[in-house]
């Protein structure tokens, strides 16, 4: 159980209780066993696996089973968890964080792991009841409470969040229409070929897909104008629904940062130590713009593993162990609708100079694509045959020149044995003993 709250100062203050915040706690405790850690979150529960809200809505799991760490995590790590309270103002000069309940917490090192919030497009009529987002457990509870046996849903946005929600709704037997601005699902995460596999799986599951359209207006129900009754698309078509979900992306939650004087672009800007423009304030996860090793710049890559690893690097630095973030990039794995698809980095590089695309496929069961830039891996997409994709991602992460064995990267029997001997030995060095 979380400890009783107090108004004392704390050595380490973490705003946000999800992947980044937990990554920081675990890292701090590797270096500093005793320094007081406090976590503040506006969500009232212990850290849970956010991606599991899809299974939760579908009735496949429970809050207890979704916990990201064992129930005694906070107690065992000596973390004071202040849950269900929003942080309202950050004062860098006094090193204080005001909470909405009037308390002020003093800190020595601060981590902003505040995540993102769903992006809401300005659509006329979007103030009606029956409009949902889908990024929190509370969102899942709200949707579940609103569902009836006759429910019909429209999901705006065919990205990862829209897909995860659609998967749950299909499982519950709710008819779903997905409306997507672009010409395919997961356009930001997958190439055309992999996206077409997802599209086929969605259609086979009975999902109706409407591409290259936006919602111009949210309509009321004929008998109850306060409640969503449907949407009118750009082309004039009307779709009826009582559940309307908006899943067009997330916007970094940076609000504490700029008024405190921290540098913010789209996200809170951090250096390779995950430090913000204030040396004792760090940021990570969906709220931050951290180094992307594919693009070579700081950008927001709102995915769970990057949040955890960024939080971990921040935590190590906060506790005094100098650590450099090697960078993250967009990477995704998909298992909805029985699929096995992974992707990372550039998906559709176009015909720019220096790019080369290698592709192979085994009829309908497997598709492999690797994007090279100047002889180094800049993107990968694997469908069906995914088990060795991590080796390719490893080469991409390390910036290895793969020109000499590039064809092997998409071969069905690709593996560590496909790497040149020197490289293979280097990678396996800690684990290989020379024969006596």
């Amino acid at each position, binding site marked *: 159980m979380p400890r009783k709250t107090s108004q004392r100062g704390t050595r380490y203050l973490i705003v946000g209780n999800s992947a980044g915040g937990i*990554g920081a706690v675990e890292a701090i405790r590797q270096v500093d066993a005793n320094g007081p850690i406090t976590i503040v979150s506006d969500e009232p529960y212990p850290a849970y*696996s*956010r*991606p*599991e809200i899809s*299974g939760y809505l579908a009735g496949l*799991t429970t809050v207890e*089973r*979704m*916990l*990201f*760490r064992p129930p005694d995590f906070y107690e065992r790590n000596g973390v004071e968890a202040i849950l269900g309270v929003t942080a309202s103002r950050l004062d860098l000069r006094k090193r204080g964080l005001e909470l909405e309940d009037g308390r002020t917490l003093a800190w020595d090192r601060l981590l902003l792991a505040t995540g993102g919030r769903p992006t809401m497009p300005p659509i006329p009529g979007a103030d009606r009841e029956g409009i949902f987002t889908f990024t929190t457990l509370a969102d899942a509870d709200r949707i579940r409470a609103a569902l009836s046996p006759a429910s019909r849903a429209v999901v705006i946005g065919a990205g990862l969040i829209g897909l995860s929600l659609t998967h749950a709704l299909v499982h519950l037997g709710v008819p779903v229409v997905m409306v997507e601005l672009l010409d395919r699902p997961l356009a930001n995460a997958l190439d055309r070929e992999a996206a077409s596999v997802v599209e086929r799986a969605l259609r086979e599951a009975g999902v109706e897909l409407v591409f290259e359209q936006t919602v111009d207006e949210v309509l009321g129900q004929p008998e109850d104008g306060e409640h969503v009754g449907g949407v009118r698309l750009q082309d004039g078509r009307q779709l009826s629904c009582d559940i309307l979900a908006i899943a067009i992306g997330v916007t970094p939650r940076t609000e504490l940062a700029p008024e405190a004087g921290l540098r913010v672009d789209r996200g809170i800007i951090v250096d390779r130590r995950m430090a913000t423009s204030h040396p004792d304030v760090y940021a990570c996860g969906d709220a931050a713009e951290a180094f992307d090793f594919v693009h070579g710049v700081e950008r927001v890559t709102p995915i*769970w*593993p990057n949040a*955890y*690893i960024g939080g*971990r690097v921040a935590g190590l630095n906060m506790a005094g162990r100098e650590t450099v973030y090697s960078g993250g990039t967009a*990477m995704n*794995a*998909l*298992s909805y609708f029985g699929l*096995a698809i*992974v992707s*990372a980095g550039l998906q559709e590089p176009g015909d720019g100079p220096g790019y080369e695309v290698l592709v192979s496929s085994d009829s309908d069961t497997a598709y492999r694509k690797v994007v090279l830039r100047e002889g180094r891996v800049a993107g990968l997409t694997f469908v069906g045959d*995914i*088990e*060795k*994709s*991590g*080796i390719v*991602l*490893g080469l991409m*992460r390390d910036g290895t020149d793969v020109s000499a064995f590039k064809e092997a990267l998409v071969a069905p*029997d690709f*593996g*560590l*044995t*496909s790497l040149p001997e020197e490289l*293979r030995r280097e*990678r396996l060095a*800690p*684990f290989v*003993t020379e024969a006596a």
Partner: protein
Amino acid sequence: MGCGLCEVHCLVEHSRTRDVIKAYLRERPSPLARLRVERQDHLFLLVQCRHCPEPLCVYSCLTGALSRDPTTGEVHVDEARCIGCWTCILACPYGAIRRDPQRGIIAKCDLCPDRSLPACVAACPNEAILYVEEAL
């Protein structure tokens, strides 16, 4: 030598019946070997979980199913918590995590908790697989 006995013994060790014929032919869901033998011309390589000190799979796990035991350094999966999202498969630079499509979860080396020596090590006729414990 590339004999693949490690693969056989690993699969049987992780079967329900622990009987090689039943494990390969009858058991459903079919048990999976937690390791992979790569064969490329005359080069053979056994690939299994390295139980990395900086485990990218653990850091990438969406649910908390993967964890590294701070006292033993072993990386384990809690199968009840794995949702088969495949993120760890993408994260592992060795390609050492397998997808169990029948169970919808991952399969990885667990160092054979019921044995004093992992089954692959005990079965290797050429003593090519070593099990070495190191201080953390």
